[in-house]
């Protein structure tokens, strides 16, 4: 057996785990590990400019590929800088392992230089965290970390590694475990057959059914199974912001996404449904609006890998705990076998009603002859990229416009911070995607507020040649904050203006990239075409859009699913 130092065991474990990229930033407590990294070339390290960005990069990679991302940082500030990124991944159930250096075990608790209790600090925002107590444990700890991060309901796992665990001159026998034993962690591998049967009977008897799919379908790689079941049933489907792409948006059975800024027809269909099949979704407050008014006539079937997600906010009539792909597959075969067929008349009447809703509103906005509307930027981008781009976003109005007007037909292509709502997510996430998808178009749709929260990563993009396209929908204000102030605070725009914005073109150029400014509507499409033609360049596109635009539809606060503002003046 081979003898390796703790640091070498760590890197070797990553190799044996099949880790291709790690994103990170060195520092004192991680230096033994960085030295081990230097002496090999299988695991590639991407040096970011701020640790938060390393986590978002790993996150973007994980969302696009479905594989866990990996981060390496030092102790103290290096570790605490990752927290926002970890919380972002936690809220959206993204698999990830964050390796943190720590001061030597002999110094822990003494307020040593760059010491932070990372296990304690990260505890509320991780799926689990582990600390290394002996160098020999490293391979097992690493195996456990990836196993926990990627199985069941995925999530981030932090590994705390005191410096003396990686000392170069102490060597131990290395063997990477094939399996891990965790007596207290056994995620469900299939749903309860009786419950699934009951659910299928209810589905086939429904008169006004809606399928409500969430991010769990994307994470559970169950888009194909879902699409097949929905097409077989012929029922309407809506999905959450996190579920975008789990079912083709261009398909006629798709109602768009639901909730606070969802489509009129999706929210209306949910409110009037008699049966809701929720799959890999968690009935969060941005979907349900006031839970006591939520879908009064609907019985609810809820499929989720996490039992704690079921009946947390909205009571389920038929709970099914299991992996979404396996449950959907079983449902599909039961639907095919069943002698019972959906009530064709009832379903036709239901579709007629839905089509009326769709015709009444649909997604629309007022266009202007001279001012660029943010929505049309997205529509043009969708057209120019054939709907095939990977789109990351930051948080705010631009995020909602991107999600509403870029119609995704495939999963894993819409990448945003849905749960935590982290500004600064978009650019590093786009970098993580571009690194592993060099031939695909990767757009970061952002605003002048969000982009400045991780703007320093333009430097990383130069170092590693990551030609993403940054689409800055510049309305010179924190648009969503301003929208809420318009609607709820009599337009008192407290601190929602961005004064002294930088010249983004010069800023991009100073990092060695290209910058393009678009101010006139007439030049919008032609300039965007030029930008997309610059395949090998990162282009920062600063687009001056309507400063007064609001995102609609918008659900009325504390109302039911069907209570919405459709424009600044129409309320239903």
């Amino acid at each position, binding site marked *: 057996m081979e003898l390796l130092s703790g640091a070498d065991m760590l890197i070797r474990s990553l190799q044996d785990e099949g880790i291709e990229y790690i994103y990170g930033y060195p520092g004192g407590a991680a230096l033994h590990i960085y030295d081990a990294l230097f002496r090999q070339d299988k695991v590639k390290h991407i040096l970011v400019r701020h640790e938060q960005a390393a986590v978002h990069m790993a996150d973007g990679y994980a969302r696009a590929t479905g594989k866990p991302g990996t981060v390496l940082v030092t102790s103290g500030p290096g570790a605490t800088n990752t927290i926002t990124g970890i919380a972002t991944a936690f809220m959206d159930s993204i698999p990830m392992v964050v390796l943190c250096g720590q001061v030597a075990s002999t110094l822990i608790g003494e307020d040593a230089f760059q010491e932070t209790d990372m*296990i304690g600090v990260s505890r509320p925002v991780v*799926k689990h965290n582990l600390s290394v107590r002996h160098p020999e444990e490293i391979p097992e700890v690493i195996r456990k970390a990836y196993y926990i991060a990627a199985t069941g309901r995925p999530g981030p796992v932090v590994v705390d590694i005191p410096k003396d665990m990686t000392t170069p001159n102490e060597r131990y026998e290395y063997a990477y475990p094939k399996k891990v034993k965790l007596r*207290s962690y056994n995620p469900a591998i299939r749903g309860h057959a009786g419950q699934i049967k009951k659910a299928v009977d209810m589905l086939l008897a429904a008169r006004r059914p809606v399928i409500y799919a969430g991010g769990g379908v994307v994470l559970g790689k169950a888009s194909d199974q879902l699409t097949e079941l929905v097409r077989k049933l012929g029922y309407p489907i809506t999905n959450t912001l996190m579920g975008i792409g789990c079912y083709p948006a261009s398909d006629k059975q798709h109602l768009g996404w639901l909730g606070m800024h969802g489509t009129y027809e999706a929210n209306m269909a949910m409110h009037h449904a008699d049966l809701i099949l929720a799959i890999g979704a968690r009935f969060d407050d941005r979907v349900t609006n006031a839970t006591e008014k939520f879908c009064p006539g609907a019985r609810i079937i809820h499929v989720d890998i996490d039992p704690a997600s079921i009946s947390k906010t909205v009571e389920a009539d038929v709970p099914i705990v299991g992996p979404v792909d396996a449950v959907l597959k079983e449902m599909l075969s039961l639907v095919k076998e069943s002698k019972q067929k959906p009530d064709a008349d009832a379903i036709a009447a239901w579709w007629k009603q839905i089509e009326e809703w769709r015709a009444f509103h649909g997604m629309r906005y007022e266009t202007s002859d001279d001012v660029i509307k943010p929505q049309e930027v997205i529509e043009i981008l969708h057209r120019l990229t054939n709907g095939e781009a990977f789109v990351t976003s930051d948080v705010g109005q631009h995020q909602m416009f991107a999600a509403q007007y870029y119609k995704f037909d495939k999963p894993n292509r819409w990448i945003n911070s849905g749960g935590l709502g982290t500004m600064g997510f978009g650019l590093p996430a786009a970098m993580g995607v571009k690194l592993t998808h060099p031939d695909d178009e990767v757009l970061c749709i952002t605003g002048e507020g969000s982009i400045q929260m991780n703007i320093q990563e333009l430097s990383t993009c130069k170092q590693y040649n990551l030609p993403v396209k940054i689409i800055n929908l510049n309305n010179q204000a924190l648009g969503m904050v301003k929208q809420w102030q318009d609607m709820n605070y009599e337009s008192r725009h407290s601190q929602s203006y961005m004064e002294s914005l930088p010249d983004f073109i010069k800023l991009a150029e100073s990092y060695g990239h290209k910058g393009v400014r678009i101010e006139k509507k007439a030049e919008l499409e032609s300039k965007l075409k030029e930008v997309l033609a610059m395949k090998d360049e990162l282009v920062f596109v600063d687009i001056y859009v309507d400063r007064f635009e609001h995102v609609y539809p918008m659900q009325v606060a504390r109302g039911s699913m069907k209570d919405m503002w459709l424009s600044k003046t129409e309320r239903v």
Partner: protein
Amino acid sequence: MRRIISVLLENEPGALSRVVGLFSQRNYNIETLTVAPTEDETLSRLTVTTTGSDKVIEQITKQLNKLIEVVKLVDLTEGAHIERELMLIKLKATGSQRAEIKRTVDIFRGQIVDVTSSVYTVQLAGDSEKLDGFIQAVGTSGVLEVVRSGVSGIARGEKVLSL
């Protein structure tokens, strides 16, 4: 409703903080908490008493089960069970009070475990209500110090919480 949740937990550093953290992080209430290793040194047994609606209690048990270090748990209040709490209480005991306290201790089947010329230290075990009742009976004015262990519980009959 008041519930007693009994948990088998990996006996590892940090496991307890995860349980306690979960309660504060999700705004659940802890009334009492006891924890000690079991006969299997890899496991600790933790008992927590809490209050909440059925929905909240369901979430508490589900969220506890999600913690990697939680091996098994049971809501003891769902079935017949025995609950006990230990109290040590120091009482002012002079003159005629001494005989009176002794009588009350006997009625509650407690023991006086330490005596000075002016103080009795009493040991009492029972359910929480019994301990409350004792304090009420001796009167709070004579109480110098109270220490209570928090509730431990176990199911009645054949039912056991084990691996």
